[in-house]
């Protein structure tokens, strides 16, 4: 086939389009770009902390938020009566809106709180003249009533359920009254205003844990004016007294928080041993927050997050599995960056307040009624290998339910019995269970809450390890809600669960096997042991110390013997920071943006 010369019009059109595209692709863009990731520009001395959100927040009304993404923002915009010390471990309560820690009455039932008189809500149109007013005891009582209101808080009320006089009755009343519940007529008898800056909280029984919820972000203090002014939109119009206020709020775009100049907090002057040497006390006594703005773009994928971090457009970033493998490693001394990154960034790790464990359904006719079988599985699983091979070594094998930074964890318990991988013992236990070499044992089914690649790999790992002793493991991958329905109704054999601390006390973890908490409560295994329950009840309201730890040891021994759950491991969060970021220490109970400082000169130089 021969061709006539290329038609000129067609040639021209193609050339124009190609050039136009070339111009688009070839133009050099700014390296940063966007409000969310602007590096501290030379000449602009504003201290900007560039972070990233991996998921979008859902609700910024303190009593309605339940997800971590929302809590991170709420705790920067609102303040709580009490808070946690940024540096000290085990975690310690410290006053925040309260002037000092509350005083307890002689019978231990009534706490008296005195509030600071210098705290103001940020300016907002909901206030007369748009000027924020002073926060007072009425605001605290109003906020606690909102927390207890059944029409508002469906998710976190359990933090205070049962221990403040009249609070449960108030909740019932709000349920009856519906959305029109009038806080003017409905009272919580245990909460009393003494004067504008003093209130009391009366308990139903002495309880050293009663103060912990007052540091939770769900109990942030809100002004009534904002709730009534914004109505349903209050979920997206936060008006608080926290370290930051909103400059820009785009749920799926960039959030910019700017310093609240009226915030009262100061950087702590004391920390743990080693904190001073690590430079964590360099800002001691300085007014918080230490940065002018925090930029929080939403970046859901790991690759762009890491590329932006490498460019200096993000100041702090946690590792995902693949990036950890490419950039870091673990040895006996801890976590390290590979040489090509070690001079650019610093690696950080800490201990989380979470635990993972296998749950056996104690009502299941096979695994629930055969202790030796449960023990055989515990001996056959290879948890250190799992942590090393499947989690980049970012975890620690655990032997009790209580995470390591919490008082009463296995660090305080002597001569603890433990399940370490021992195939000979696993085989012995299988014989004892009536299934020598796995003969006659039907496949066991483990329930999973999703079917992601990660989950499937996790299953394959455990399946292979159990197969070595003749146990066949099957998986049931399902949607999250189907999983919840199955587990909460007891229609399962085994599953894998996790628990992150609502508050940093061992009680929050030992309740996971407490009889009355049977599913759909936190006791997913449905374990019932009166002896264990009595020990739990005895330890529950005791102060930490040898006596309490001795009870924990007895409880741990019972769980070792009965194995209703097999505690596997706790996650170690590993992250990187740019060298210009100061004062970073992992704190699982509070969001630490207010404590972070930026060396602007170093940042400008580093980004260039």
């Amino acid at each position, binding site marked *: *086939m021969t*061709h*006539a*010369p*290329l*038609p000129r*019009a*067609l040639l021209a*059109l*193609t050339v124009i*389009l*190609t050039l136009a*595209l070339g111009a*688009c*692709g*070839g*133009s050099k*863009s*700014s*390296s*940063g*770009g*966007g409000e*969310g*990731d602007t590096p501290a520009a030379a000449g602009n001395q504003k201290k900007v902390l560039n972070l990233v959100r991996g998921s*979008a927040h*859902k*609700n910024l009304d303190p009593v309605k938020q339940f997800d971590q993404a929302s809590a991170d923002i709420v705790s920067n915009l609102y303040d709580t009566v009490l808070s946690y010390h940024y540096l000290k471990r085990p975690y310690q309560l410290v006053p925040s809106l309260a002037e000092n820690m509350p005083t307890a009455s002689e019978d231990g039932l009534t706490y008296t709180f005195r509030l600071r008189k210098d705290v103001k809500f940020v300016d907002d149109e909901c206030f007369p003249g748009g000027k924020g007013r002073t926060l007072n005891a009425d605001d605290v009582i109003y906020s606690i009533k909102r927390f207890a209101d*059944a*029409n508002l808080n*469906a*998710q976190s009320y359990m933090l205070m359920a049962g221990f403040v006089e009249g609070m449960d009755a108030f909740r019932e009343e709000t*349920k009856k009254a519906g959305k029109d519940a009038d806080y003017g007529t409905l009272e919580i008898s245990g909460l009393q205003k003494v004067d504008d800056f003093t209130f009391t909280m009366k308990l139903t029984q002495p309880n050293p844990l009663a103060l912990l919820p007052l540091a939770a972000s769900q109990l942030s203090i809100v002004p009534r004016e904002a709730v009534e002014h914004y109505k*349903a939109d209050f*979920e997206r119009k936060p008006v608080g007294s926290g370290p930051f206020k909103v400059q820009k709020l*785009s*749920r*799926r*775009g*960039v959030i910019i928080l700017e310093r609240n100049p009226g915030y009262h907090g100061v950087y702590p002057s004391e920390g743990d041993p080693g904190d001073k040497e690590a430079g964590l006390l360099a800002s001691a006594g300085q007014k918080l927050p230490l940065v002018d703005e925090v930029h929080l773009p*939403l*970046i*859901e*994928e790991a*690759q*762009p997050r890491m*590329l*932006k971090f*490498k*460019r200096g*457009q993000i100041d702090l970033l946690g590792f995902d599995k693949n990036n950890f493998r490419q950039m870091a490693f673990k040895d006996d001394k801890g976590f390290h960056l590979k040489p090509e990154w070690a001079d650019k960034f610093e690696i950080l790790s800490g201990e989380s307040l979470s635990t993972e464990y296998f749950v056996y359904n104690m009502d299941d006719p096979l695994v629930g009624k055969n202790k030796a079988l449960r023990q055989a599985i515990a001996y056959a699983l290879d948890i250190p290998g799992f942590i090393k091979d499947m989690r980049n070594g970012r975890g620690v094998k655990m032997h009790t339910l209580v995470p390591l930074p919490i008082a009463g964890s296995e660090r305080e318990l002597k001569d603890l019995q433990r399940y370490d991988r021992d195939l000979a013992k696993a085989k012995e236990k299988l014989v004892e269970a009536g299934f020598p070499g796995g003969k006659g044992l039907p496949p066991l089914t483990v329930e999973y809450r999703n079917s992601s690649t990660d989950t499937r790999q996790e299953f394959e790992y455990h399946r292979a390890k159990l197969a070595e002793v003749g146990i066949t493991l099957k998986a049931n991958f399902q949607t*999250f*809600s*189907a999983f*919840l329905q199955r587990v*909460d109704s007891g229609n399962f054999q085994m599953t894998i*669960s996790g628990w992150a601390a609502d508050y940093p006390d061992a009680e929050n973890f030992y309740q996971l096997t407490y009889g009355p908490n049977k599913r*759909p*409560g936190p006791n*997913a295994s449905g374990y019932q042991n009166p002896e264990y329950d009595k020990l739990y009840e005895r330890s529950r309201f005791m102060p930490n110390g040898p006596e309490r730890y001795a009870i924990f040891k007895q409880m741990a021994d019972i769980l070792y013997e009965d194995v209703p759950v097999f505690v596997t491991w706790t996650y170690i969060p590993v992250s990187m920071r740019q060298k210009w970021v100061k004062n970073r220490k992992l704190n699982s109970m509070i969001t630490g943006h207010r404590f972070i400082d930026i060396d602007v000169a170093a940042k400008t130089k580093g980004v260039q």
Partner: protein
Amino acid sequence: MLAYTIRRLLYMFPVLLGVAALVFSLFNTVGEDPVRVALGQHATPESIADLEAQWGLDQPLYKQFLDFLVQIATFDYGRSYDTGEKLSDMFAAGAPVSLSLTLPPFVIGLILNVSLGLLIAYYRGSWLDRFSTALFIGAMSISYLAYIIGFQYVLAYRMDWFPISGYEPGIEGLQFLLLPWIIYLVVSVGPDVRMYRTVFLDETGADYVRTARAKGVSENRMLFGHVLKNAMIPIVTYSMVAVPFLILGAFLMERFFSLPGIGDLMITAINNGDFPVLKGLTMLIAMGYSLIVLLTDIVYAWVDPRVSLS
């Protein structure tokens, strides 16, 4: 034509009713339970009942379906279960982002790919045809995700020609869109040009082209005045059906470039069982699709006098 249009508009009602029934059935049979997802594990029966009542999920199914039909009729889909935001606000925020991501490369791609298709068909059997066929088939064999990851890494991170990710409304935001546009064009060029080439080849081999050439019609006039015009029906069909989906954006692109569009919103809603968002988006797309199909038929008559609307 007016009677035809009115009749076709009336046909839309049973179609939309069917879509509504299908969406509602799927949500209530295979979808996530939004209350369970919201409350997480260990939710008490009381808290489940409270939230179901709040969201109207304690009502009989027929009542829920009737409410859904009222929402469709009034274009008021209420608020997202997940975030409490008004659906209208969510769409208004997300749709411009998705359209700014997809519409410009769609238009540019249409012109570019039709031109390339015409060019390659014209040179059928030449080195250009063979080379482009190999190139486009190779390009089509690479996954969309690989283009995104590769281009983001090389062009944005390594070469620093574009921002890695981000979004701003207005002209400032153009810098964030250029790289996604290029990827969109690169991904679409293979299948589109191959398709248009085939269409044009059918036409260039037709008798009327041979007759035109024999009569001495210039190549320009033959290609643009005859071949292109006669190929418009499949081109219009192929491109118009893509239009309603432009508003959905491109899910992967939105996630990797942090563009807060509708695609990402849709996927999140599916994962969380956020039925109001799913209802709203599905019905919006169904209506858009029905209207576009009608518009396509009208355009047929405009581009090809042989087609009559009756």
